[in-house]
């Protein structure tokens, strides 16, 4: 379960942004909408532990982020949170397979090539396992990003504009794969977007102002 209470954040020299309190049960899939500048990405980074809030509390499975030291938080994030960005930003010098092995290692998990192949299979990019990321299309790269986010069976998957760089066909596919993958590991899925193509498929939506 993910909970955020009284969350605010202030960039230096800018007014403080406050976020609505929010609770997501395990397996929930939420869409977070809002115009540019409404703090969607900031919220996502707060929930992902990439940024510390000015005030308020975030707990994942009853664990308070604020209780963690920076080192603990990095470890906690690697083990329990998977993040998909607008672009994959895979390590360019490594193949798709090696990128996923690196994710397993950084998440403190056992290296398991079979598991990686299963996930790539499900995402229909198994045949690209030994390619370098820059040889892949945008849609394929996004699938690698999804694979990387779910490989360690996280409790929480965060996605920041995962489809906005994709065409309609790829957008639908990536959206479906993201939901299926989150379902498969029973993770909470939070998608931040201003992409209207996603609105129809997410019954739970949070609107930021």
């Amino acid at each position, binding site marked *: 379960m993910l909970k955020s209470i009284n969350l605010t954040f202030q960039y230096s020299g800018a007014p403080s942004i406050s976020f609505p309190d929010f609770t997501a049960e395990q397996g929930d899939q939420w869409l977070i909408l809002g115009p540019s500048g409404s703090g969607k990405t900031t919220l996502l980074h707060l929930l992902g532990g990439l940024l510390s809030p000015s005030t308020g509390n975030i707990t994942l499975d009853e664990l308070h982020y604020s209780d963690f030291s920076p080192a603990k938080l990095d470890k906690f994030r690697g083990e329990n949170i998977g993040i998909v960005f607008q672009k994959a930003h895979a390590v360019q010098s490594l193949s798709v397979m*090696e990128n996923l092995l690196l994710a397993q290692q950084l998440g403190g998990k056992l290296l398991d090539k079979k598991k990686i192949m299963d996930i790539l299979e499900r995402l229909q990019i198994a045949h690209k396992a030994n390619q370098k990321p820059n040889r892949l299309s945008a849609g394929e790269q996004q699938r690698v990003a999804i694979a990387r986010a779910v490989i360690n069976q996280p409790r929480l998957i965060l996605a920041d504009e995962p489809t906005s760089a994709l065409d309609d066909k790829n957008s639908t596919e990536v959206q479906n794969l993201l939901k299926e993958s989150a379902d498969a590991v029973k993770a909470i899925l939070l998608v931040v977007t201003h992409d209207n193509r996603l609105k129809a498929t997410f019954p739970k939506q949070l609107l930021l102002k």
Partner: protein
Amino acid sequence: MNILHLSLKNILNKPLTLVLNLVLFSLGVGLISLLLLVNVQLEDKFQKNFAGIDLVIGAKGSPLQLILSSLYHLDSPTGNMPISESKAFLNPKHPIFKKVVPLSLGDSHRGYRIVGTNVSFVDLYEAKLIEGKMFEENMEVVVGATVAENLKIKTGDQFQSSHGLIEDENLVHEDAKPFLVKGILGKTGSVIDQLIITKTQSVWAVHEDHDHADETEEEHAAHLDHDHEYAEEEKPLAAYEDQSITSLLVQFRGRNIQALNMARNINENTNFQAATPAIEINRLYTLLGVGEEALKALAMLIIFVSGLSIFISLFSSLRERKYELAVMRTLGARPGFLFQLIIFEGIVIAVLGFLCGIALSHGSMIILADFLEKSYRYDFSASLFLMEEIYLFGGSLIIGIIAAIIPAFQASKTDIHATLADNKG
């Protein structure tokens, strides 16, 4: 998938940058290592060839030239010493000189110098026969190990010497009697390996036959008779008043005041000059040292530039890689992981550069050895590895780390939020 592996992958992902860095680094390391290799072996050669000689006496001229020609067999001799004027030095009961070895130089065989002397010359370099016997009669020679090896000479072979010290077919003493190889010396690592050694009288014999080719038959015959006479009853060298030699190698009985004043006495009171090997060789080192220092400075400059190039390429790669570094942080990588990653990249380039540099210096030594052997009369080795090369390795590591430390620090400070939030649209 450890950090080192990832560092290596990152470096190999930019092959052109890697090549540039490696070329610069290996040039610097290679130049230093080559200087060390040549230097150590040259010094070793100069040391070995001192052969316990305290003084070299010869015709007036450059003292350095006298030392080089008589002790190292590099330069041309300074001139001749008539025996009539140098009899005093040849006295076996000389109060100051323990050992005096006469040298007659100026002839060669296929580029290898022939030294007219006596058996004590062979003893100076502690050379031992590995085949055949020592020379006894006129026109008998023993050859040094390298000469035998390179010219494929065996005991019993005959050859005709040439006038002068370079290989030139037109200068062969064709009408002179041939030399007969009586024995072959074992390897000593000193200059004697590169020499052909015979009696002083043999060198005279070649030149008498040759120089007086237009003599009348009787005169010629008289000379030949003369030779026979010498061979039968061995006269001391001092008895050949009408002959000349090139120089004398001298060992003192003791290092006392008279011995030390001897050189000055000879220089001031005779028509000859006396040169002290240690002094002249030090002078040579000083002369060579300037060039060596300049080359060293150049090598240091190249290494500095290569360090700078590693720094710049790592630093600029950070800009390209800032997103993937930030994403690695979101996957659980600690700042220390990114720091180590970049440091290892610097170290890997330095180690590869060092290895290429060592391969370069030892590789070029193989090519240079032949040339150096001809010009320095010394076998150079390419497979010699020096202690200094380990220090060079340590130095390379330090340069790799220094070049990487600022980029590594920068990488470890990657602000995940700012980097990834900034990449919108």
